[in-house]
């Protein structure tokens, strides 16, 4: 048992300083925030730390009480995944997805939010219409999109001879763009809400003075609205990158496990295959680590690009 230094017992000032260093000036406040701190540590920090550990070991899950060597293997798991063409392809596919999804999301949500904010008729109805896909489970929406985009689906029936062959979901060049369009449509309502909130903070006076200076609608949008919602754009960019890089449900269901022939596979889909189905959590964790690094770098870049100079 540790003993308290005699000097501290004698000096109440030092005792207070020591207590303040560990518990802060507002111990009650620290106490109130403790549950969330514990939540973050248990739900986020612990699994992340454990995943880092797994990625550097020859690891597999065992029954309780079973002692099996799980030696440290250095970067072996990273070498394995970085030389696996399927893993590289999945990152390339994610790149294609982000290139389509992120700009579309930012532009469409900003434009639609601006239109809704400008007082178009039936604005509430549009707001609900945009938000409903976001609230609806992807599993059920995917069923609708399969009916729309399958070979004999509605879209191809409307397009007639212009329908692509092979069809949308089984074409190696169209499968990922179709998923990107689907996710853009599904998530749009959430991002519109973010922009609508941000638009409330753009002073009306700026629009009025721009109008007085003779600016038309497009010029006001470019010179007033876009800079006025810059912080929301940063948030939308980062959220779109993070959710896009974690794509799983859509390729799992819409293109039946990353098909055709891996053209829509994603890193998270491979993590599921390798970690859960094939019981190789070590390589799955290595893919996860790489994904964290890539997403971190992309988010950092997005943050830098949209930073006010």
């Amino acid at each position: 048992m540790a003993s308290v230094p005699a000097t501290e017992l004698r000096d109440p000032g030092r005792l207070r300083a020591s207590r303040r260093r560990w518990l802060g000036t507002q111990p009650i406040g620290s106490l109130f925030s403790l549950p969330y701190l514990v939540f973050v540590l248990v739900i986020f920090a612990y699994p992340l730390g454990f995943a880092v550990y797994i990625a550097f070991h020859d690891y597999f899950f065992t029954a309780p009480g079973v002692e099996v060597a799980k030696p440290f293997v250095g970067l072996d798991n990273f070498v394995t995944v970085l030389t696996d063409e399927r893993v590289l392809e999945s990152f390339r596919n994610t790149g294609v997805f982000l290139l389509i999804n992120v700009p579309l999301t930012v532009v469409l949500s900003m434009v639609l939010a601006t239109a809704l904010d400008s007082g178009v008729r039936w604005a509430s109805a549009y707001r609900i219409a945009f938000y409903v896909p976001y609230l609806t489970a992807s599993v059920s929406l995917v069923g609708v999109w399969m009916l729309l985009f399958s070979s004999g689906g509605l879209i191809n029936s409307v397009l007639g001879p212009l329908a692509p062959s092979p069809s949308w979901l089984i074409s190696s060049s169209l499968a990922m763009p179709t998923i990107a369009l689907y996710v853009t449509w599904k998530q749009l309502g959430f991002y519109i809400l973010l922009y609508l909130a941000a638009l409330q903070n753009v002073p009306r006076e700026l629009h009025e003075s721009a109008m007085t200076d003779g600016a038309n609608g497009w010029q006001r949008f470019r010179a007033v609205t876009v800079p006025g919602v810059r912080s929301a754009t940063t948030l939308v960019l980062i959220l779109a990158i993070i959710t896009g890089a974690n794509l799983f449900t859509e390729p799992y269901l819409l293109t039946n496990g990353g098909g055709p022939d891996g053209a829509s596979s994603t890193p998270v889909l491979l993590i599921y295959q390798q970690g859960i189905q094939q019981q190789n959590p070590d390589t799955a964790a290595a893919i996860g680590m790489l994904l964290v690094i890539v997403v971190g770098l992309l988010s950092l870049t997005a943050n830098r690009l949209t930073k006010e100079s």
Partner: protein
Amino acid sequence: MKTIRPLAILGAAALLVAGCSGGGGGGGNGDGGGAADATGAIDIWLSNNEQELAWGTAVVDAWNAENPDEQVTAQEIPAGASSEEAITAAITAGTAPCLVFNIATAAVSGWVRQGGLVDLAQFEDGASYITDRGGEGAEAYMTDDGFYQLPWKSNPVMVMYNRTIFADAGLDPDNPGMESFDDFLAGARQIVESGASQSAIWPSPTSEFYQPWFDFYPLYLAETGGTMLVEDGAATFDSDEGRAVAEFWASVYAEGLAPQEASTDDAMAVGTTAMQLAGPWAIASYGDAVDVGFMPVPTSTGSGDVYTFADSKNVSMFTSCEAQGTAWEFLKFATSEDSDGQLLELTGQMPLRTDLAATFPDYFEANPSYETFADQAERVADVPSVPNSVEVWQAFRDDYSAAVIFGTSSVEEFLSGAAETIDGLVAE
């Protein structure tokens, strides 16, 4: 804010240290806490198939009535993307039941590696009971020279066809004459060209590791007389037989006789396809909705008495089971001749025991549509029990999809490439 930092760092460090040391504790040997002769109450898991649940409930009730001190509680396998994922999670968490009556052979090697399964040969009469019941074929289900599963029942895969569509296409529903690859392709073309059905056959073209069991593998077993995908530690399919089967399926897809995308509904039930590869379960499932017939899977020569994929489901005992003595006795009770007869009666699935037709003559006399399957059940083979089994099948499926379904690589590249990958995986 500053005050939180030291606490947070301390907490995070403690959790990370705990995390880094997790998963390796304990000191058991993989047999769990249960002794082979320990008795007591046990839990078992059953498939969520309605007929199998009815069978399981009846068997458990019969056992419980006779064994008040060794009660058995049955439940469905917990929901998951697949039974295998739910069982893997249960092994890791130590919450697996004593017995699971729905074990896919492909998953067994992984669970043995996890230390989750009991070698049934450790029971005094374990090995002899399994081989007496299942015959010599039971040895094909061994992993690392141990019986980690009891071969329980099979669903021999055959070609199921819609008799009405066949008649509409001008094919004889009683004798379609599609035993050889050439005849099968000719019949398939006739179905599509006549407009009787949108497609001739619709195997799932998706990328799950188990899909080859319902397209390439049954035909490969038929073509080779029962040679499994991997034998003696090496892939067997980079051969003339493997090439013939792969080229047959490649023709089916290239000619548009089978769609390259998954059906949005049950293609057989709605009539958008004329054929599926299926087991005897399909008789009860399609019932009166579709007038179905069955024929053996085709081969290049159209030879009779072909082999096919067993699609077996087996029973394993888990190391977390404390009353392993009771579990073993219940396992024997549930796979006895009486229980097997009950299984056949309630589910139409074929118990994996020798002389099936002769053991249950009354049943097959009363249910002639199942007799074909009983005959086929004498010539079945399963997936090989090899290390990294799921990874092996996934590698196979990935290369097969590219070459055969989507035609983005050649059949030759698929055969040699997949064989090389699989040889490496099996040797690990």
